[in-house]
């Protein structure tokens, strides 16, 4: 087990190192730098040139690439993500502010997915081939094929504009300050509804199909037949004997999909004016805010690696047959 852990951690660090180098290269080699972007407005050519040089020096862009990377790396090791080129604020702080809106949506979304998808999948599997199964399968398949941003546009158009039921710009209304405590909670909750749904429905459909499929496979196993033969109630057979064994792939599926929900969606957050990580990333790319882009790439990569790692460990916990020694 210890050997497995250390091997995984070392290979994860190697991957992470590769990721930082690729990101750094992609970002820094792009033509046009932030200094150029920020001095483009200055009319006087001489002044513009002088400010440009000063900015490049300030940002450290005048140094060779490997020196810049070394500097970034040494800061990172000390836990410093640097300052934004855009407004000079600490990158860690900017990310911290954007983290909660994205994280909260991701968590609610995951919870809602599991709460709805698991019972739905089980029920459909038990009723295999009956009308409920057929209809829910077809609907879920269609739902799965709706792109999140298409769903977002349709929700905004019909629920937001035509019926005027739900707000769709940002996290709170303009008159937020005047509301009572309950009113504020209600206001924020309403803002969460549509964007959370857009993050959820695709995964929900996928998970439900997945649960159904896995359960169908398990139901055909001998030990399920044995459980039935023992005269156990159908409920116990399905939930205790069959479903628990179909959990295994579900755990790794969560590990595979969750980090991508966590990193936010550029389009959805932009569409709903949501102050999350996706929008921060988009704005950083537009403004060539190198430290913020690097930090976001790095954090996302860490999240992906950590969640797949945790999922692998959970795998062993759910399924004692899995051995980490090889």
């Amino acid at each position, binding site marked *: 087990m210890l050997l497995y852990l250390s091997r995984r951690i070392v290979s994860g660090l190697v991957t992470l190192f590769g990721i930082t180098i*690729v990101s750094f290269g992609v970002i820094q080699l792009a033509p046009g730098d932030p200094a150029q972007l920020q001095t483009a407005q200055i009319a006087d050519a001489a002044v513009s040139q002088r400010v440009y040089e000063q900015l490049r020096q300030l940002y450290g862009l005048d140094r060779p690439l490997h020196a810049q990377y070394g500097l970034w790396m040494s800061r990172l090791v000390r836990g410093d993500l640097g300052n934004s080129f855009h407004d000079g604020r600490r990158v860690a702080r900017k990310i911290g502010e954007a983290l909660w809106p994205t994280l909260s949506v991701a968590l609610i979304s995951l919870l809602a997915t599991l709460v709805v998808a698991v019972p739905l999948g089980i029920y459909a599997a038990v009723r295999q081939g009956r009308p409920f199964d057929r209809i829910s399968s077809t609907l879920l398949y269609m739902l799965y094929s709706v792109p999140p941003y298409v769903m977002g546009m349709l929700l905004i*158009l019909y629920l937001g504009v035509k019926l005027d039921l739900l707000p769709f710009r940002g996290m709170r209304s303009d008159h937020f300050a005047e509301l009572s405590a309950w009113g504020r909670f209600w206001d924020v909750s309403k803002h969460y509804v549509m964007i959370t749904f857009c993050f959820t429905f695709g995964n929900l459909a996928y998970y439900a199909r997945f649960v159904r499929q896995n359960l169908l496979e398990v139901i055909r196993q001998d030990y399920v037949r044995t459980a039935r033969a023992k005269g156990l109630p159908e409920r116990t057979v399905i939930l205790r004997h069959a479903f628990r064994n179909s959990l295994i792939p579900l755990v790794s599926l969560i590990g595979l999909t969750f980090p991508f929900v966590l990193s936010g969606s550029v389009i959805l957050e932009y569409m709903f004016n949501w102050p999350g990580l996706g929008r921060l990333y*988009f704005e950083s790319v537009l403004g060539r805010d190198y430290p913020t882009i690097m930090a976001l790439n790095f954090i996302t990569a860490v999240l992906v690696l950590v969640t797949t790692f945790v999922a692998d460990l959970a795998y062993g916990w759910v399924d004692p047959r899995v051995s980490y020694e090889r």
Partner: protein
Amino acid sequence: MSDRPPSAAPSSAPTVKPAEGMVRTVPAAGRWWSVWRRLRKERLGVAGLVIVVFLLLVATLAPLLANDQPVLCRFDGSIYAPAVIDAVRNVPGASLVVQKRRPFRLATFDFKSEFDPERGDWAVWALVPFGPREIVAEPLRGPSRVHWLGTDQSGRDVLSRMIHGAGISMRVGFLSMGIAAVIGLVLGSIAGYAGKTTDIVISRFIEVVMCFPTFFLILAVLAWFPPRIENVMIVIGLTRWTGVARYARGEILRLRESDYVAAAKSLGFSPARIILRHLLPNAMAPILVSVTFGIAVSILIEAGLSWLGFGVQPPDSSWGTILRAGYENLFTAPHMIPPPCIAIFLAVLSFNLVGDALRDVIDPRLQETRA
């Protein structure tokens, strides 16, 4: 990479002639034929295929379906077919050879105003007699009998722009997945065949690329290149190859130990020949499934990028840019939102359906679980 799956049949006997490339037209009797026969029985898959074919037809025939110049006309005593020429020029490379005759070639020529029935002029128009860039009416008008889907923010016909947008979507879908398939096949088969250190290095590289959320990587790279549709295709291709690579690697790993590979090796064939002629044709089917799903994702990404302003640039039309125009005029022109939504949904749905059916047909293990 073309629109069709390469028609490579598994070679039954070592062929005499040395490699002339992967695609060989052996009379179809092998695996692909049986795949097609079984695919025909998958109702949903066939439905998906029908939509795919429909979208491809709309994409290729777009100039004949929506055009500001007629399909066939008599103008000033001569017969012209400008829209047909447009359709022919749509074929890659043909625009260098085929040109419209004067005066239809001229940018300043406006057939609709020069049209004069008194002179004996007549015209057979396209289904939608408006060009995708032609300003035809007041901006942001709702659907009417003349403009079935209304007009956009510049007063252009939305239906015409939707039809021409299909071309963009299909091109991006197929070409970017073509690029991705080539990269994935090359890296995946090298990793699978060579094994050892090469495999470890390539596998790690695949893992690195997979760790980036694709969309982030695409945005970062597009900050590099000017946002043009060709660049969008290349970037999507460069980032979406990991699935194909992993499939190819896995299949080659599986097939590498087969007897026929051992036979080929003992005959002294080069690794390139063994991979291209003996391994890949047999590994192609699962890879095709991955490519089909990839096309759906590429179409999705293209529309999303165009929505963000990183994809197709005005005045060209894409489903994503139409959707964006609808978003920006939410309260005044909601009629621009449903059409691109439906189109994107149908495109994604149809490729998913085909991909699922293909997988069920190709992978016997999955077939058992469906019984």
